[in-house]
């Protein structure tokens, strides 16, 4: 039995990287043509959970709600964090869920994971129109302490507490790093600035060991996968899917394109003449700058 059980909740998202994304003629996302991938914030959450594996030999479970193809996101996350359990919550009934209804499914799933979960990691937010509320709402439903914008953390296994550094940004003020100690269990939403540091030989050796294990496991991810529909999960149908979503999206507007205030000129980088032009422009701009 591990001393620490952690969970990660992740999301399959459209791959916005070059060459993978496709748009409809009206400028909206063409979901059928766009490739999907593990959301970048979910990936960061997986990295943060992996830190617990390397440092505390934690057991990791990953959960996601989505269509059957969302199992690929579980595989990708397992490749990062060497999880021993993968949960996919998949049911037509879940469709149309807002953040609150999603939180209900995730909460129920987390309670079904192996071991009593001590820390749940979630991404900062999703990149395809999510508002960063799923995490806090899931935490609230679980009754876990919520720690947002975490850039670093340590666990005190004896005291059963977590000591986390949070990046606090307030408009008009300098960013501050706040250190917080909270009793387990906690729900951590990981800041994009999170980066794990492994700086002893032992840590680096276990890092290598688990990385290798992660590759082997994720190559056979189906072996670790459990798929739940609403009934298997045992959720109350009132709280999930469209029915459980109090949010009503009554209109989606395209963000109006700002009028460009600057004129761009396209220069050909392989053309000597064009390069010369660029340098001349830079010179012009620099000479206009007065450095005091």
């Amino acid at each position, binding site marked *: 039995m591990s001393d620490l059980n952690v969970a990660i909740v992740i999301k399959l998202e459209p791959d916005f990287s070059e060459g993978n994304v496709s748009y409809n003629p009206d400028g909206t996302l063409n979901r059928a043509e766009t490739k999907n991938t593990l959301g970048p914030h979910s990936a960061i959450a997986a990295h943060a959970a992996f830190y617990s594996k390397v440092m505390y030999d934690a057991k990791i479970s990953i959960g996601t709600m989505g269509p059957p193809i969302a199992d690929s996101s579980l595989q990708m996350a397992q490749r990062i964090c060497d999880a021993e359990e993968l949960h996919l919550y998949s049911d037509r009934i879940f469709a149309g869920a807002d953040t609150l209804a999603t939180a209900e499914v995730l909460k129920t799933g987390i309670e079904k994971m192996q071991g009593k979960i001590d820390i749940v990691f979630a991404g900062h937010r999703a990149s395809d129109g999510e508002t960063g509320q799923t995490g806090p709402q899931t935490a609230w439903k679980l009754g876990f302490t919520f720690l947002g914008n975490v850039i670093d953390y340590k666990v005190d296994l004896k005291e059963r507490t977590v000591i986390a550094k949070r990046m606090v940004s307030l408009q008009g003020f300098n960013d501050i790093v706040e250190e917080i100690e909270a009793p387990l269990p906690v729900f951590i939403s990981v800041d994009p600035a999170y980066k794990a540091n492994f*700086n*002893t*030989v*032992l840590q*680096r*050796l276990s890092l*290598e*060991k688990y990385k*290798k294990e992660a590759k082997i496991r994720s190559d056979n991810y189906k072996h670790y996968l459990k798929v739940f529909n609403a009934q298997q999960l045992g959720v109350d149908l009132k709280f999930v899917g469209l029915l459980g979503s109090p949010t009503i999206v009554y209109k989606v507007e395209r963000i109006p394109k700002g009028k460009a205030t600057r004129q761009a000129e*396209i220069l*050909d980088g392989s053309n000597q003449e064009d390069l010369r032009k660029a340098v001349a422009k830079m010179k012009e701009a620099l000479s206009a700058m007065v450095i005091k």
Partner: protein
Amino acid sequence: MEKYDVAIIGGGSAGLAALKQLSNLGKQAVLLEAGNKIGSKNVSGGILYSKRPKKGHVHNVEDVYGDIFLSEAPFERKITKYILHSTSKDKVYSIDLTAAHEYESNFGYSVLMNKLNGWFAEQAAESAQRFGGGIISGVRVNSIEWDEKNDRTIIRTDELEEFEVKAIIAADGVNSEVAQISGARPKFTPEQLYQGVKVVVKLPEDVINTRFNLIPDEGIAHLFAGDITLNHIGGGFLYTNKDTLSIGAVYHFDSLLANPTEPYTLVNSLLKNPMISEFIKDEVPTRGKIDKNLPQEEQIRNRFAITKLIKSWRELREAYLSQKGKNDLLKSGKYQSVDEIKEQLDSIHNQLTQKYDVSFVTDYVEVEYSAKLVPDGKRCRMLKPYNKNILFIGDAAGRGVFVGPRIEGLNIGIDDAFRAAEAVARALDKNNFDPNYLGEYYATSVDESPYTRDMKQIDKDYLKIFLDATKDIPSDIISTRYGAVLKLMSSDTFRSVAVKFANILGYERLLPMVESEDTYVKVPIEIAKRLGKTIQPTYTPSIPSIADRVAKLNFNDDNNSHIKVTNPQSEFLKKIITLCPTKCYSLENQQVMLQHEGCIECGTCSQETDWKHPRGEKGVVYQYG
């Protein structure tokens, strides 16, 4: 502080073999490698030999890694032919030296270090893990402290917290910093070094098979002497890999300092030789001029389309011209038949020529440029390859050896590694790391290695093989002006007693005579002139500039320079302006200046600079090596 039994510093082929062998013996060891990925810093020619000496025993790669090496390791081709060419302008005279290649050898495989060391690392890490050890890359050792009061050795790195070990194996290569920080030996001097420079050329597998007359997986080594050396002592090589060629030049550093020539000029001299340029030629797409009358957006779109199509054409052609590539394509279900692949290939070809004004010309495709110093083991082998509780192996111990016309460093480093592992395991068993117990045992073992003990005998045997191979050269060809030993070749009577004569002369006097301008330059030129076949070049290879070569390399830039110029007026460094393979040095107001970006860590400038390897993960990242 964390404690481990053994630290191995450097993850080249020698260090990795030490880790694997220590694990085979059930011992715990941690290997630290500065490069961000194992294999990213290692350069070789290279042919990896497995040897079977008449007397005594050497430890080969398959002894360390087991038979799985032969069945699974990603080596390139098994070398079965070995030819030496004398060159003079467009004339080449070839001598079959396969007997020298087969001399006391089980096999010789052509290898690319990035791939091969990656495989070695997987094997070694897996074994090491079982005993609480392993490989950590991206970490550079910067100092070692011998805390005598507490009887402990502390390793410090740029990246990790310090830790304690009982013994150290230094496998940090020819520019060993461990040798410096431990005071084990001074830096190697130019008389003790060669400079090697190499390019990797891409060529489809089937083209290599046909052009070099090889069956799949079989390879050939071509060696070159004569005018391609531009009067330097050393020579060139061309080894066939699976779908690349390794072409390089290795010259004595002394000879380069006496008459500085840019390393790229030396390697270019090989590429321009008509025999080699015919070997490397391929069908290469070249872009036409973009129609400047088109709207600029369209010009850009066309450029992208061309780039994408050329990439597809290259990839598909590479697969089509290789047995495995073809099979993989058919297995993937993307194509139903080989003809279908060919059709698609032709269709891309047509699109490129007809729609996008791309023409296909005869040229060659260079994918990597690299360089490194090579220790001349006959002149710089550490006679005492240990200091305190450190054992030196491979290039760090100055072990690279020129056997006849070729370098052997890989196999000797592996033999060292095996012996060092044995010595360390023995010391761990007795918990005795005293130099008299650990170091001396290792030194004796290295002395007993046929690679050390029989070095002179091996040279003499080679001479014999060489003389046999050249017996058809008419006796008048080598005029009396040229070296005494080579003159022997011209005389039937002398040839039979040449080896005896070499014995009488003594090895120390023989060595400089054999390794002379006569041997590498004058005599081969004379032979080629008089007996050589003329080769008509069918095209002129467009050789990239050094700036283009550097631009093609990958670097993890470090703002801090790992090299410091301590004396900007140094005459030595003034020559390094020419001898740095990537032109990092320049002269400004009579002061030598260094721009470290672009440094490929060859070590050529290390003699008179404060020279360190870059911090962990930083610096050059070779893809082939």
